[in-house]
């Protein structure tokens, strides 16, 4: 299913373009630095698939603003597949890679990065996965889109855009690294393929 496909009866509206996404990630980088008074002890972990390129971009933005920060030294990925609570309700998921920066996460401030915050269950799984890797001093959450409909008491610390949606709608995040271009789309309830 192509990114621009508009299935009959539904429509895909682009709510964020490439420039919007870029600005949101710059702002979030500044907010992270402001909140933590610099980048000391900061670790940015992206949740595959699309949290990973977002984490890399955020880290690059942090490195651009804050002297002495090397993006590769603070970035990693955190796969949460084996910690999900819905494994038995879906086809078998492919397991992604987990990489933690060489210094580990003990005593660090971990910023989790994901594309869409929805039920909150992915983040719950991520917190469990982190727990098995070490003991961070604090965990914060950055997401590109918060679309509401939480099923768990979880909220984001840094949000690119709050998108009020109906639960029948579908939010699609496209990133150049994984999809060839940047964009956030809302697909209507009937059209959105499946």
């Amino acid at each position, binding site marked *: 299913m192509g990114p621009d496909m508009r299935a009959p009866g539904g429509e895909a509206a682009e709510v964020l373009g490439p420039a919007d996404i870029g600005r949101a990630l710059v702002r979030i980088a500044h907010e992270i630095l402001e909140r933590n008074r610099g980048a000391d002890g900061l670790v940015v972990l992206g949740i595959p698939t699309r949290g990973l390129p977002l984490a890399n971009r955020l880290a690059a933005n942090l490195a651009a603003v804050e002297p002495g920060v090397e993006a590769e030294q603070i970035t990693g990925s955190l*796969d949460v597949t*084996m*910690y999900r609570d819905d*494994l*038995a*309700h*879906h*086809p*078998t*998921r*492919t*397991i*992604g*890679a*987990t990489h933690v920066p060489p210094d580990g996460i003990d005593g660090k401030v971990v910023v989790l990065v994901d594309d869409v915050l929805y039920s909150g269950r992915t983040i719950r799984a991520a917190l*469990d996965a982190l727990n*098995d*890797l070490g003991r961070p001093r604090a965990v914060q959450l950055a997401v590109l889109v918060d679309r509401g409909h939480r099923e768990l008491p979880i909220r984001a610390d840094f949000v690119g855009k709050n998108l009020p949606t109906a639960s029948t709608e579908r939010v699609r995040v496209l990133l150049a690294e994984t999809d060839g271009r940047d964009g956030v789309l809302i697909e209507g309830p009937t059209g959105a393929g499946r």
Partner: protein
Amino acid sequence: MRHLLSAKDLSHDEAVLVLDTAAQMAATQAREIKKLPTLRGRTVVNLFFEDSTRTRISFETAAKRLSADVLNFSAKGSSVSKGESLKDTAQTLQAMGADAVVVRHQSSGAPHRLAHAGWIDCPVINAGDGTHQHPTQSLLDAFTIRRHLAGGAGDLAGLHVTIVGDVLHSRVARSNVELLTTLGARVTLVAPPTLLPVGVESWPATTSYHLDDAVADRPDAVMMLRVQRERMSSAGGGFFPSGLEYSRLYGLDQRRLDALPDHTIVMHPGPMNRGLEISAAAADSPRSVVVEQVANGVAVRMAVLYLLLAGAQATAPADDETRVLA
């Protein structure tokens, strides 16, 4: 595919998926906390009708690292020694709520019977049946070869693997010939004529009676098979004149070890008969990956358990195509 009964059941892409999943599992086993919550609440039964140390412990470790409950069943000391049939044993396990059965049996085809007779409705994993198949062993061998010789990713295209020894009785050899060729490797079998099975010429492998020629052919990996004395009737069973002659002609000694290319790895599925098919020098040399094979076995079996057990169960076969491996 819902069960893992034979290496032949795996397509190229499925086999690569198992190896990729095993690589992620192996990465988790380097952590301080090795346990994952993935299969919490599931029950895996190890049903072993034949003696085994490493395979049973490996499956048990794999299941426990994924938080599954493990029931160990061995024929010795069970109702099987009172004459209980495979069917009744299977139905007992079903009634106890097994979510997967790992079975080793001295009869070729027993796991297939267990999977398809309608006695139980959970995934069956073959942990070795008679002289037929041992698919997880071939997966861990492929994983080990891939890690050392193919950069730890993709398939084994272009690699040359030589399997030496008791091919006749070896389910490891059968599984490896199928899996390694599925993954694009070239396989050569080396054995005395008496230890090659009838019909070996139809296998996707070349055969040779001379180990020195095979060594000169510069293989990338040499896999020594155990001489399975327990499957040979009398001493040696008439398959070869003496252990000494076997080890002179088909044993991996220091001279042959030195003649191998520098990058070649030495493998053995264990347990080793030191001094018979493999010399101590070869078994303990830096190019021997025998101990690593055991460690990789846990990761590969975790991957197989994950892929067969974690997803939605095949109660609705309609959307089977959307499942990754099941």
